[in-house]
C-alpha cells in the first residue's frame, strides 16, 4: 500500500525531459501553429529542428537516452507529403528497425521512443500529441529509476 502511494507521489512530482525532433516543413510548422493559435501543451519538451525526418539517425536517439532524456519523439510529414519526396519513408524504415533491434533489446520501454506524423496544419493535433506523450512518460516514470 505504502509502495503504491509512494509511486503515485513519484509520478505526480516527476517532470519528464522529452526531446522532440521536428522536420522543418511539416512538424515544426505544426508546432509553430500550435503556439500561434495558443493551444496549451506541457512545457516538458525541447524541440530540435531538422530539415527532414530522414536526417534523424538512430545514434541521435540513443545519445539522447544516454544523456538523460526520458522519451524521444520523432515527427515528420505524413507519408507522401515529404518535401524531399521520400525522406520520411527512410525515417519509417530506420525507425522500425531501430525499435525492434536496438531499443527493445536494450530493455527500454518501447513507448519511450515514438514516431508520429504531424502536418503543418495540425497545430491542435501537435498540442494533443505532446500532452498525451508527456502523460504516458509520467506514468512510466523516469528512465533512471
Amino acid at each position, binding site marked *: 500500500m505504502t509502495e503504491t502511494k509512494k509511486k503515485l507521489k513519484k509520478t505526480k512530482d516527476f517532470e519528464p525531459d522529452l526531446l522532440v525532433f521536428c522536420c522543418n516543413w511539416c512538424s515544426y510548422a505544426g508546432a509553430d501553429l500550435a503556439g500561434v493559435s495558443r493551444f496549451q501543451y506541457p512545457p516538458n519538451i525541447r524541440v530540435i529542428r531538422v530539415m527532414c525526418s530522414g536526417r534523424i*539517425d*538512430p*545514434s541521435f536517439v*540513443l*545519445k539522447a*537516452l*544516454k544523456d538523460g532524456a526520458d522519451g524521444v519523439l520523432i515527427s515528420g510529414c505524413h507519408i507522401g507529403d515529404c518535401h524531399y519526396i521520400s525522406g520520411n519513408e527512410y525515417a519509417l524504415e530506420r525507425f522500425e*528497425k*531501430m525499435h525492434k*533491434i*536496438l531499443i*527493445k*533489446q*536494450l*530493455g*527500454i520501454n518501447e513507448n519511450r521512443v515514438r514516431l508520429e506524423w504531424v502536418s503543418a496544419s495540425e497545430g491542435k493535433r501537435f498540442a494533443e500529441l505532446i500532452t498525451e506523450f508527456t502523460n504516458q512518460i509520467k506514468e512510466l516514470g523516469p*528512465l*533512471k*529509476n
Partner: protein
Amino acid sequence: MARYKIRQSAKKNVDELIAHKGVYTTITEIMSQPYINPDRSLEWVPKNIKIADKGSVLYYVGCIPYFNYEFDKIDVIALSTLQIISKIEKEPIVLFKEEICCGHDVYWGQGKLEIFIELAKKNIKMFEKAGISTIVTACAECYRTFKVDYPKLFEDFSQKFEVKHIIEYVYEMWKKGKIEFIGKNESEEGISFTYHDPCRLSRFLPENNAITDNTREIFKEFKKLGYSFNEMEHNKSNSLCCGVNSWMNCNEKSKALRYKRMLEAKSAGSIMLTSCPKCKIHLSCLQDDYEDISSIEISDFSEFLVNHIKVIDSNKNSEVEK
C-alpha cells in the same frame, strides 16, 4: 599507442570519428548504467536446444544480436556456436537474456575506462549469480577482454571463471577424445581453405598462448576429409589486420589493407575462415565493391565446423572394451 591517446593528444573529441555514427558504442554506454536490464530476443535459438538461466557452462554471445540492425546473416555465428556446444555438453547451456557488452570497444576505441569498469562489475555479478564456471565465447574480442583485461582489474577473475574461445573448446574436447570430425568432401577435387587470424587471437594475446597452433592442428586433421589447409603469406601473429577493429572508421587505407588480405586469401584457397565477427563483417563488406574477390567464401570457424563434428558416445566405447 592506443588510438584514443593519439586523439587526446591532438585535442580531438574521442566520440567523433567512431564508425556507424557511434550507434554501437552508445549502446555499450547505455548498458553500463545500473538501471538498464537488457531484454534480448532469443528468437534465433532453435527449439530443440535446451537453454537455462543457471548452470556451469555459459555461452557468451556478445553484441551479435545488435549487429542485426545493419548487417545481414550475422546470427549464424551465434547459432552454429550454440549448436556445437550443446552437442558436446549434456546439461543445458546458459544463455543470458540480460547479457551486457564486455566493454571491449569503449576501452580500446574511446578509452572510457570508467564505463569499462562499470560493465566489468555488472558482468562479474551476473556470472556469479548464475553460478558459472566456464565461459565459452565465439568472439575474439570478448575472449581477449575476459582473458587479459578483466584479470588486470579483478585479480580473482581468472581463478573464478575459466574462459575459452570456441577454438580452444573444440580442441580440448577433440584431444580428450569426446568428439571426432566427420563429413567427407564428396567431390573429387579437394577443397582448399585458409584461415585469417584475428589480431585479438594472435598478437594481442600473451606470448605463451597456443590458440594459433591449436587451430592449425585442427585444420591438419581436416586433410583426411578432403579439405586442404593453406597458409596465407602473412599468418599467425604476422597476419594482416582487417583494418577496422573496435569501430574505427573505415577509409581508403583500411580498405586497401583488406583488399591486399583478400588477394592473399584468393591465392590460398576458395574458403576463408576467421573467428571474429567483426573481421567477417568487414571482409565480406568489401566483396560487394570488388568483383575479383567476390568468389571467396568467408565464414566463421564455428559456422564451418558445425556440420563436421560428431560426438563419440562414451557408453558405446566402454561396451566394446568389455
